[in-house]
């Protein structure tokens, strides 16, 4: 290609375009490059070890993936980092209307291990943390939701099985600095591993299909360079069933284990974390009921008379908004069966001119939950499907 042929000869390209069109621009520090190569090679060795060399070397026997200690971190891992698994409605939106200015600063937030929520937090966070018997305005409804969850029937899930969840989702596909534009509704299926020992490769699989999906119809594995034990960041059936069923005890545990993002109150973080635990999981009825009763004790949780999920199903909404956060999640429950239907996410604050105060930027609907023996396998029946209004 020849620069002389540039059609718009009168004007040079913008700096941004030059940079964009230039070859690869950034290098990973050599130590990180090597670290991630090690991660790959060790995974290959682990996967090949049983088949090709039945007699394991000591190194392999103590490798993280086969460690019997659920909490042991990977030896070669850098400082433990908060692991967050992909979520359908909240994590998938790539951009929000509010992001433009914040992107450039991200690295410095990471680099300076920012202090948790500053003085902007509402100051209510200790009430629930101490197990005070606070109730919020949604507590009656949450009590009914808990009772309905208690009455459901769930078969135990084995360590070697997968929790399958099929949902419909719409994500923001707008520009970073423009208004939110929700993309077309598409299907997302996940198969989450139930292995309780730490895993790096094999956490789960995602398959998206329909308009707007990347690699539609293909299963893409969910992996992590650092091994993730079953726990609050990888909620397996077994881990969920090990949680206290007393709501106050449960809430204390969740407050202790939930990390707070910059600018977020502890109450909001725990509310959001419970939302994660409800999303792509299967758990015993008593634990589901305890989670809802725990939510009833978080200050500031409110009820919305009518909310609608990505499948167009109307129901009762539960939400929480606080001064320190710029987003708000809603969970939607069937009005009759009180089963979990789906969720919506809103941007509640956008200080740019002309921005609307409450903008939907993600929405989903859980269409099926099931347990299967292999990833890629679709459930044959519709067992454990939440009632579809």
């Amino acid at each position, binding site marked *: *290609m020849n*620069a002389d042929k540039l*059609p718009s000869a009168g*004007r040079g*390209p*913008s700096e*941004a*375009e*030059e940079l*964009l*069109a*230039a*070859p*690869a*621009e*950034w290098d*990973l520090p050599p130590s990180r*490059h090597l670290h*991630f*190569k090690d991660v*790959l*090679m060790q*995974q*290959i060795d682990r*996967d090949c070890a049983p088949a090709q060399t039945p007699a394991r070397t000591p190194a392999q026997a103590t490798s993280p993936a086969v460690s019997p200690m659920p909490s042991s971190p990977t030896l070669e891992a850098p400082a433990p*980092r908060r692991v*967050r698994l992909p979520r359908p409605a*909240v994590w*998938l939106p*790539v951009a929000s209307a*509010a992001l433009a*200015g*914040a*992107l*450039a*600063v*991200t*690295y410095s*937030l990471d680099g*300076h291990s920012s202090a948790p929520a500053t003085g*902007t937090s509402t100051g209510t966070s200790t009430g629930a943390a101490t197990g005070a018997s606070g109730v919020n305005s949604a507590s009656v409804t949450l009590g009914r939701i808990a009772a309905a969850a208690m009455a459901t029937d769930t078969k135990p899930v084995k360590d070697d099985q997968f929790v399958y969840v099929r949902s419909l989702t719409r994500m923001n596909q*707008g520009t*970073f600095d423009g208004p939110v*534009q929700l993309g077309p509704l598409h299907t997302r299926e996940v198969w989450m591993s139930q292995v309780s020992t730490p895993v790096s490769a094999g956490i789960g699989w*995602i398959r998206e299909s329909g308009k*707007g*999906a*990347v*690699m*539609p119809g293909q299963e*893409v594995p*969910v*992996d992590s*360079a650092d091994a993730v034990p079953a726990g609050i960041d990888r909620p397996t059936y077994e881990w969920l069933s090990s949680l206290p069923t007393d709501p106050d005890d449960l809430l204390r545990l969740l407050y202790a284990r939930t990390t707070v993002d*910059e*600018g*977020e109150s502890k109450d909001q973080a725990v509310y959001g974390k419970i939302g994660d635990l409800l999303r792509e999981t299967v758990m015993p009825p008593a634990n589901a009921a305890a989670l809802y009763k725990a939510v009833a004790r978080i200050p500031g949780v409110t009820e919305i008379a009518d909310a609608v999920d990505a499948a167009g199903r109307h129901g009762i909404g539960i939400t929480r908004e606080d001064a320190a956060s*710029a*987003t708000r999640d809603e969970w939607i429950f069937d009005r009759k069966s009180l089963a979990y239907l789906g969720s919506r996410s809103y941007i509640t604050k956008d*200080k740019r001119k002309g921005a609307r105060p409450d903008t939907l930027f993600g929405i989903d609907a859980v269409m099926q939950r099931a347990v299967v023996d292999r990833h890629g396998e679709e459930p044959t029946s519709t067992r454990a499907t939440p009632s579809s209004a």
Partner: protein
Amino acid sequence: MRARIRAGDRAAFAELYEQHARAVYNHALRLTGDWSEAEEAMSETFLAAWRTRETVEPEGGSLRPWLLGITTHKARNSNRGLRRRLAFLARYPGPPPVEDFADETAGRIDDARRLAVVHDALGRLRRQDREVLALCVAAGLDYQQAAEALGIPVGTVRSRLSRARARLARLSSGRPARATRPGREKPEPRDARGAVEGEAALAAMFLQEETG
């Protein structure tokens, strides 16, 4: 190479990593604008490649489109910083304060500036257009390869790319680079040669629109 990858040859994966890690990391950086997310997306791309090695077509050219497709998928699924950024913005609207760069080394500041500028440009495109532009223009895939990477028809790659170019052209004619911050000089071209290369690449970008 494809046969060795499909067969799970350890050395082939080591080579694959050495050949493509940088491109994968850069693609992830362009899409996420975040150093740590990009590292993770890169690492996860190769782990995913290992685990889905049997899905590689036996025949074909470079494996880079396959890897970058996985990276695109990972980038979409790894917006761990979204809430943090939103929360930040709720309190500090507008561009980030310059002081944030104060403690960084000079090289890091340059890296951060360049990333901010690139991400600013990409951020003005719709997500799907952004992904195609990052694959075709920045990562250098052709239409067919980009289609392969994303699992979409070639015609869709063409239309998204043309929409992205039209928007970029419109933007570059209308406004100054937004990432230039008050109190900071406009980021300088890396050097004369770099600028020329950039122009050539940009020319290629527009020429492809007519001939591709």
